[in-house]
């Protein structure tokens, strides 16, 4: 979707402000919010792509106003409501709906380390055959879907060279909408700065972007 989350190349957000000796969390609620997001994901009612898509659908003005973990709060509430895990009415009232069944058992503390150590690989053994090879020149398609995509706007219509073949990976566009994994080759594509930003590009070099086979045409 052409959302405000797709920020690459935008101006006006001001300087980057590094913080010396930054703590992992600045507030306990931020830590609880991260943990709630990870723990509820274990119910497998959604996937990581659907999680990102839920955050992206926060109305733009709210998205920009929220701090990082407020964006996570908004995304998790939307997601839980959409998949029927927790309704918006329950979140608004703070109480389980009358007569609603109690889910059990949730993730236990003893299982957490193994879950995180295992992670959730996106690589798959089988998928669509690849159409491109390392060294080939390609052009990112000019697509503007309303659904989730990981082809950023600043690369659409631009040409680059495939520098690495990452193998077969789950396609987020499909996965985020629960329409299947559609596994296919994922490549790293090198776009020269001048191709992306014009002849007066502010730097000499390139931007490397990981792009799926279906995002690309031969150039």
């Amino acid at each position, binding site marked *: 979707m052409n959302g405000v989350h797709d920020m690459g190349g935008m101006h006006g*957000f001001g300087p980057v402000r590094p913080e010396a000796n930054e703590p*992992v969390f600045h507030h306990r609620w931020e830590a609880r919010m991260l943990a709630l997001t990870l723990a509820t994901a274990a119910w497998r009612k959604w996937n990581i792509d659907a999680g990102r898509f839920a955050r992206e659908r926060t109305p733009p003005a709210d998205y920009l106003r929220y701090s990082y973990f407020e964006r996570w709060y908004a995304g998790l509430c939307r997601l839980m409501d959409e998949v029927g895990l927790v309704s918006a009415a329950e979140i608004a009232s703070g109480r389980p709906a009358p007569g609603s069944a109690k889910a059990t058992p949730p993730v236990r503390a003893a299982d*957490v380390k193994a879950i*995180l150590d295992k992670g959730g690989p996106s690589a798959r053994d089988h998928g669509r055959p690849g159409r491109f090879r390392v060294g080939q020149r390609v052009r990112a398609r000019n697509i503007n879907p309303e659904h989730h995509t990981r082809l950023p706007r600043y690369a659409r219509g631009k040409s680059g060279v495939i520098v690495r073949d990452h193998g077969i990976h789950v396609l987020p566009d499909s996965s985020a909408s629960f329409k299947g994994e559609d596994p296919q080759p994922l490549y790293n594509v090198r776009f020269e700065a001048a191709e992306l930003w014009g002849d007066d590009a502010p730097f000499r*070099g390139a931007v490397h972007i990981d792009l799926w086979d279906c995002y690309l045409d031969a150039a």
Partner: protein
Amino acid sequence: MSGNHDHDHSEIPSEPALRVKALETLLVQKGLVDPAALDAYIEYCETKIGPRNGARVVARAWVDPAYRERLFADATAAIAELGYGGRQGEHMVAVANTGTTHNLVVCTLCSCYPWPVLGLPPVWYKSDAYRSRAVIDPRGVLADFGVTLPADKEIAVWDSTAEIRYLVVPERPAGTENLDEAALAALVTRDSMIGTGFPLSPGAAR
């Protein structure tokens, strides 16, 4: 970003603190989460993952040419040799700074970051300022960190749009020939593994 500075000890909790507390209470009542498990997730993020892990990987690559070769051939496997892997580090790629190229990692679309080797991302990495500007004006971003590169150095920016996570392997600082691997690891900063900084000089490490 929130401009208030209330902390856990403040008497009046911020609104997000109240909302998240209410959400946790609801999810516990519904049987969807166990508070002890939430504590375990937080402990993992605060103690098991972090830039000390990545620093060990970089230091090993500096002293062991065979390891360096394995790291650039298959970073996920090479990093697993040192015991690191898992969520948000399932598919790792290492990129080397050289005399001619400086690497910088960003996620313009969200906040993708290699958790096992660097921990959770700092606020600036997740900020709209960094996400928007790193791909169009990396030299300007580096200036915000006090970093200036030679004019002829090329910059390679890595936008983490998939589940591939990037680790920058900075150049080994001069004057470190006599340091052992542990002493070298102490020179490797988090920012040097993102590309917004350099390793410390010998004598500067604490």
